[in-house]
């Protein structure tokens, strides 16, 4: 209800779980719509709908080979997503894990018998 309708930016394009799943699939290899229908087990209109949103924000590009249209991920466009992925849980959760192992390392040298 309270969601913003900023469908034209990369952020909301990838905010939809189905579109992330599509991207994850296309990261592996370029595919046609029918390849995707088969791989995702979604209807063709469903695949086309989400693919269109990804194309509109240039996360996915289209190449025509004969009568086939191949879709692939545009990694450069995904770079800002890296920054987003690194938001709170990703970024700071990861950093706190680094902190934990760092603290463990530097304390190893100490003689710790407190029992």
């Amino acid at each position: 209800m309270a969601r913003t309708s900023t469908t034209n930016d990369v952020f909301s394009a990838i905010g939809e779980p189905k579109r992330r799943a599509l991207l994850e699939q296309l990261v592996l290899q370029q595919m046609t719509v029918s390849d995707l229908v088969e791989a995702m087990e979604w209807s063709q209109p469903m695949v086309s709908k989400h693919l269109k949103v990804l194309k509109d924000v240039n996360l996915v590009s289209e190449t025509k080979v004969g009568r086939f249209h191949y879709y692939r991920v545009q990694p450069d466009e995904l770079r800002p997503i890296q920054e987003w992925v690194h938001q709170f849980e990703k970024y700071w959760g990861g950093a706190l894990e680094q902190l934990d192992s760092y603290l463990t390392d530097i304390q190893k040298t100490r003689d710790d018998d407190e029992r």
Partner: protein
Amino acid sequence: MNAKTIEPSVIIREFDAPRQLVFDAWTQVKHLNNWMFPMQGCQCEFVSADIRDNGTSLHKITMPNGHEMWLFTKYEEVAPPEKLVFLQYMSNEDGDILPMAHMPNWPKDMLATLHFEELAKGKTKITFYWEPRNPTAEELAVFEASREDHQGGWGSGMEQLATYLATR
């Protein structure tokens, strides 16, 4: 209902280390350079650090693929060994804050508040709050939307995607 109320995201972690050491790890460059990055294989370099009330710092994180990311931090409160409050921004190498061109409605000011609690001798708990400061309605909505996604959990495929990007 109460759309104006901001509920911060929270991470709580416990560390097997004395509180003063955990706090120092957040405020001293000799420690920070060793861990202040989101995953293994990154490198961190603080090029400036004036970590005290109203101080700033600038550091660079180099991703495993060589991609560099600069972060500028404004410290509002540095109260050893119990509390740390700062705003952090993506920046360039001069510390100029960069607009998030691809995420126009991501909150401009993200505030981090950390509480360091001594649970027992050599055991410290960090409670880390993360929230937009004075967000516009759009910014708040984007923040909330991103959180809904996080709570749904990123699939392992997204991890794969991140790894793929990081190794390019």
